[in-house]
């Protein structure tokens, strides 16, 4: 008769040995991911615009296959993913690392342009220009230089805030540096024409506008804002008359209050006329430039919407 006390330990031992030896009863199919599979999977996600997954998978590729020849490209692609995820500061750092590694000139060139773009999207136009200016002095590749000059032209136009016309002149200088063989590709002639027209566009004199506003509404009238001019004239002359009548009839308290309010509106009328002149000049130039330039990133749209009549949704 079989003794259960002796059989049970044997069964347990056999089971343990079977598991350890991976007896076919417990065996599973294994999948070994190699470098090609990992890279292709990461790239597939990038192509499908799943930037979160692609970022993770490219990082996984770099971690597990550090000796693979595609690591610099994978690192660059992580920068691309970060850029599209709007993590611009991190993207700029990644591109900087690729530039410093400098093993592949093609990647290096792309990284310079992308780093500049990342700084632009962060709103740091100064650094965006500096990256390109520095690299233009280092590279001997003519086509890369032309790309840089074109990008710098766009950045200078994007830096134009209304009173700093030097930015438009600098944009022009960079356009002129583009070699003749790429002039057509970068639409040099059209962009130069737009810049020249913007620089030569008729302007309203803000000082004159302010001086004219001594007569309420005259400054607005000069800036071709006729409704504002009429309202400013009627409102200010009405309040001046009201203050005069109040004081004349001995009602100092009322006269004082009306005079105080009128001081505000009169000052506002002068300030508004000066601003109207500046806005007129800025708007005219941006409308001309908008025909040939698209320098505005989405980050700029909020700033520039009123200039080019866009509708934005918040």
């Amino acid at each position, binding site marked *: 008769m079989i003794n259960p006390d002796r059989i049970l330990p044997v069964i347990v031992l056999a089971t343990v040995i079977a598991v350890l030896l991976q007896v076919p009863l417990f065996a599973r199919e294994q999948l070994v991911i190699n470098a090609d599979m990992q890279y292709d999977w990461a790239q597939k996600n990038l192509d499908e615009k799943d930037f979160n997954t692609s970022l993770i998978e490219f990082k996984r590729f770099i971690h597990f296959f550090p000796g693979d020849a595609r690591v610099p490209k994978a690192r660059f692609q992580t920068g691309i993913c970060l850029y599209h995820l709007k993590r611009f500061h991190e993207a700029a750092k990644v591109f900087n690392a690729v530039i410093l590694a400098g093993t592949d000139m093609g990647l290096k060139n792309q990284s310079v342009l992308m780093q500049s773009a990342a700084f632009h999207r962060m709103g740091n136009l100064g650094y965006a220009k500096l990256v390109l200016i520095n690299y233009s002095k280092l590279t001997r590749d003519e086509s890369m230089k032309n790309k840089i000059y074109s990008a710098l032209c766009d950045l200078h136009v994007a830096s134009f*805030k209304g009173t700093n016309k030097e930015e438009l002149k600098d944009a022009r200088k960079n356009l002129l540096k583009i070699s003749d063989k790429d002039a057509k590709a970068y639409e040099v002639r059209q962009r130069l024409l737009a810049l020249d027209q913007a620089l030569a566009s008729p302007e309203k004199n803000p000082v004159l506008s302010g001086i004219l506003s001594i007569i309420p509404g005259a400054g607005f009238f000069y800036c071709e*804002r006729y*409704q504002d001019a009429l309202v400013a004239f009627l409102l200010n002359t009405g309040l001046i008359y009201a203050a005069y009548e109040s004081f004349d009839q001995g009602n100092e308290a009322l006269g004082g209050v009306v005079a105080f309010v009128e001081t505000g509106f009169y*000052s*506002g009328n002068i300030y508004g006329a000066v601003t109207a002149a500046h806005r007129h000049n800025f708007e005219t130039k941006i409308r001309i430039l908008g025909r040939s330039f698209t320098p505005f990133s989405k980050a700029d749209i909020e700033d520039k919407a*009123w200039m080019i*009549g866009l509708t934005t949704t918040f």
Partner: protein
Amino acid sequence: MFPSCSEYARQAMEKHGPVIGLIMAFDRLQRCGRDTVALSGTIIKKGTPLAYDPVEFNDFWWFEKDKKR
């Protein structure tokens, strides 16, 4: 218009102090709903199109925000 005149006044005084802010507010009151509407871009707030006229569009010629960073 967006922002509203009262909100515009509040932002202007917060940004530039009571004196300049008040002057900008009075300027906005005189301009509100007239030529600025035709000249400004439009934004959609809660399904309503509004003329966009923030403080930044009226002080850009003398105030540099970079200096404040």
